[in-house]
Every structure is written in structure tokens, then in C-alpha cells.
């Protein structure tokens, strides 16, 4: 799908003198901290959140990284 902001940035990179960029796409990264009883619950909650609110699957792909914070809660 066309990413006009990515294309504009790629054009600017060439003007800066950085050549050879074949592809440049712009997205967003969202960091959040979540308290959950276990990792599986956290994973399920975050998948629901990503698919229904944080991203729109019609126009966006998403990936999820889950790391555990100290104190046993997932972050």
C-alpha cells in the first residue's frame, strides 16, 4: 500500500546525499506496561488490543514483542 510520508522521506534522504535506499516505510511504535497474572494472559490481551485498537488490520500490519519486567509483571 502507498505510504506517501515514507516516499517523501526517501526523496529527502536522496537530497541529503544518502543514496541507494530502495524502500522506506513509516509506521509507529507503541510501548505499554501491563499487569497480568501470567505471560499467556498478557499475550492474549495484547493481541486483542493490537488487532482491535492499536492497529487497523485493513491498512496496517503489526508485530508484538512481549518482555517481562521485574516483580513478575509483564511489560
Amino acid at each position, binding site marked *: *500500500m502507498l505510504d506517501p*510520508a515514507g516516499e517523501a522521506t526517501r526523496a529527502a534522504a536522496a537530497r541529503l546525499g544518502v543514496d541507494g535506499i530502495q524502500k522506506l516505510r513509516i509506521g509507529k511504535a507503541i510501548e505499554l506496561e501491563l499487569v497480568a497474572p501470567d505471560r499467556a494472559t498478557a499475550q492474549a490481551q495484547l493481541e486483542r488490543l493490537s488487532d482491535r*485498537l*492499536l492497529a487497523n488490520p485493513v491498512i496496517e500490519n503489526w508485530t508484538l514483542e512481549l518482555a517481562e519486567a521485574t516483580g513478575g509483571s509483564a511489560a
Partner: protein
Amino acid sequence: MSVGVVVFPGSNCDRDVRWALEGCLGLSTRFLWHEDSDLKGVDAVVIPGGFSYGDYLRCGAIARFSPVLQAVKDFADHGGPVLGICNGFQVLTEMELLPGALTRNARLHFICEPTPLEVQPGQCRWLQTYTAGESIVLPIAHGEGRFQCDSSQLEELEGNGQVVLRYAANPNGSVGDVAGLTNAAGNVLGLMPHPERACDPATGGIDGRRLMASLLG
């Protein structure tokens, strides 16, 4: 009989819609605050343009979860007429009352200008006073109006006659020149152009009048 106009923090066409309906057409309106889940017995609902919840995350993404829209979803599912204009169209796609999504204009600019359109009324209840293939002019004012869906979805929409408004000269890169869509039942209409800004001859053009006047059948 009255038309409900949804008001979110960041809506900026709610009063324009009220002026068009009351001032130009003599229809009664009621504002519906985003935190209310009661539609106050209105007979039709307009989700107006603007920047609901600041358009944070994505246009319409936060609005979708507001109490008023849970009630609007139920209203639409039972055949109630719902019109989404500009940000309202974005909201309708996020609510999945209409398919696809509205994305950043192809050339990144916010575009604000009168735009020629072709109407194909199909089953859409608001457009029955327009003839098939009729050319009209309505203003657009958006930065994120590029309609996107996959090619099989677009084929299905076109086959069902749900693409009811097309740009005559595509300003934003929308697939299929889509400017407005209806649902299969014809009671939900979403469009990027602003019919409420084309109701008063003083503001240039009245091609939106028949659409707005049809809200109450």
C-alpha cells in the same frame, strides 16, 4: 421527527450540520454528546466532520469506542439511517459499519476545494433524489481521505452498487475514485465531501441540499 448530530471533543462541523438542517432546511436537530448512550429518540444520526479525540492513534479509532457510537451501531444494525461526513466517514469504517479505511492523501496535502463528483444512488436512501450518473459539486476538506481496500473488496462494492459517489478528478489517490460508500442495506452512508457546506446559496452551491433534506425520508 429530529436528526441527532454526534458531538465529540474535536468535532468542528457539528454546528455546520445543525445550520444546514435547521437554518437551510427547517429540520429539527438534537446534539448527541459522545458520553451519552441514549439517542434521545432521534430518527436519523449524523456523525459530523472534525478531529474526534484529536484524531489520536488514527482518525476515528478512539471515537469508535465511545458510548454514543455503541448506541449508533445498534441503531444502524436495526436499519436506522446514519450519515458520516468526512471524519464521520472515517469513524464509520473504524466501526466496521462500512468497509475499507481512509488514509493520508497521496500527495500529503490537506485539500480544501470544491470537487466535482458523480452520483450513482443505488440503494442509498439519501440519494434517491439524485439521478444515476448525475454530476454534482461538493466541497472537500481533508488530509486523510484516500480510500483504501483490497481489489476483491472493491470489486464486491462496485458489483453491489455501494460506490455511490466518485471523484470526477481524483484529488487524493482513493482506489476506484471512491468518495462515498453505502452499506448493503442502504441505510448507512459515509462520504468525504461535505454536503452540509453546500446547502446555502450564500456559501456557493446547493448540491448537498437534497441529500441533507432526505435524512428524514
